[in-house]
């Protein structure tokens, strides 16, 4: 079976909402498994309430899910996500009015301090655990962040 046939098969499996598929013939073996073939979707009757948390918008169920997944899986190939290790307030620099630790485009080393998350008056430094280039900063200065919230995207250095 070639790639285009495989892709077509995958599409068919998804379209038909199959949760598991196995096929074996003459040395070829295919196994497809899907976790949430349909899952809850559709309309939510709950009124959306405004929240000061997370840059002025409440995290809806789907969003919470996608954050969880992203945090768990990392993102696209070669891009590393730095997440907040604790709940607290994000500061991009050592004190107000001072230059941020890093800007988009900066190269960082493993161990470079990226930001501070303040929790209970304690300033917790968040260091990069990889070396590479900062390609995005996902939160605003002095914004509250939760555990596991994505803070920085780092393009890994090749090789």
């Amino acid at each position, binding site marked *: 079976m070639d790639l285009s046939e495989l892709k077509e098969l995958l599409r068919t499996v998804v379209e038909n909402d199959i949760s598991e598929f196995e096929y074996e013939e003459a040395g070829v073996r295919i196994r497809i498994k899907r976790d949430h073939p349909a899952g*809850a979707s559709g309309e939510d009757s709950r009124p959306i309430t405004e929240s000061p*948390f997370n840059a002025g918008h409440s995290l809806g169920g789907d969003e919470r899910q996608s954050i969880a997944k992203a945090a768990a899986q990392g993102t696209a190939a070669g891009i590393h996500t730095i997440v907040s290790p604790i*709940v607290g307030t994000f500061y991009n620099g050592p004190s107000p009015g001072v230059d941020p630790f890093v800007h988009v485009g900066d190269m960082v080393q493993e161990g470079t301090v990226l930001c501070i998350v303040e929790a209970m008056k304690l300033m917790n430094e968040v260091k990069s655990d990889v070396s590479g280039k900062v390609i995005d900063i996902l939160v605003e200065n002095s914004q*509250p962040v939760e555990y596991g919230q994505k803070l920085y995207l780092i393009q890994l250095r090749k090789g």
Partner: protein
Amino acid sequence: MFRKVLIANRGEIAMRVILACKELGVQTVVVYSEADRLSLPVRMADEAVCIGPAPNSESYLNIPAIISAAEVTNVDAIHPGYGFLAENANFAEICIACGIMFIGPPPKMIKLMGDKALAREVMQQRGLSVLPGTDRINGSKHFERLAEQIGYPVIIKAVAGGGGKGMRVVRDPGELSRSVELAQVEAGKAFVNPAVYVEKYLEHPRHIEFQVIVDRDGNAVHLGERECSIQRRHQKLLEEAPSVAVTAEQRAALGEKVALAVRDLGYESVGTLEFLMDPQGHFYFMEMNTRIQVEHPVTEAVTGIDLVKEQILVAAGESLSFRQQDIEWRGHCIECRINAECPDTFVPSPGTITAFIPPGGPGIRVDTAAFASLKISQYYDSMIAKLIAYGPDRTVAIQRMRRALDTMVVEGVKTTIPLHQKILRHSDFTEGRLSTSFLERINA
């Protein structure tokens, strides 16, 4: 009143607090672990903050993370629910130090009642009977004579105890010494504090508890008793109000004593005094829980009072809107705890709930955070729902509970529903012959 409350808990009690806050027009924030990201409280609260990974120590017991979440969301108060940090005096103190109201009693009351031996003492001083027993035992001297005086069987209990840990029944004087040592080791492991004490052991007592609520002005009201005799391994499984064994006179007399005692101690908030009742109708104070109980709905049903709302109002400094003479008990209410566990072995049964259809109709209340497709995590308590049946009398409450159990659907995990069905049809239950050994007896 509070503008915004943070709920430092999960599952059905987090939902329960959210509902109370919604009725009061108070904004809610829930904190949650990564395992609870798709939970109902997270969906239903106005705000939700992830505070850590699944293990309790890193999330629901993580005081700095919870306080930090409270600060960044700018709440006025924290509701601890039950379990987790609900009876942690240190947490209550930190809340207050950070300028956040702790929805519960003053920390020193939590500390006092957390010491089971001391609680016995102060309640005895205030006119409540306790079982004959010793003060705390640190060494293992002298208590053989004390046990002899008390008379066997005796029970060894941890001073810092709870949940059946560090408890040992001793029927034979020759086993006392070894049992005390073992209990001390167990208590030390479970509660850090190895201190134990010895008490007369009642063979087939009823577990009867009294609900109280006290406001900051010192108005103390008791809301009558609950019978919680049906337990497995010292954990309650089915509760009801009123108890068939308690007369109106007993309720009034003991209730008054209880309300006076807690007022005299300077208690505030809701609280529960647990008693053992012997077949002769004597009540012995065991301990006081300084939080909302799992089984609070049975009291709500028979008194018409919303305990969680009142708890929040009292914490906000409001005066109680009722006095003792306003309390009337009407009808009968039973609560069955639906746990995700094997009904025979009580082994937890984590997994994904594939179908969940709670029962409805007249007289039925369901408190739950479960729904079809929810994953029941092995990290947390196995209780997935509280099924609450009210009727004008005990007979109707039983009929309603039976049909509610028979029409409840939970698929994907094993539950205690079959066990409750058995209990509700057992003649000892329908005729009210209850004791803490009920479950052993009917399963024998």
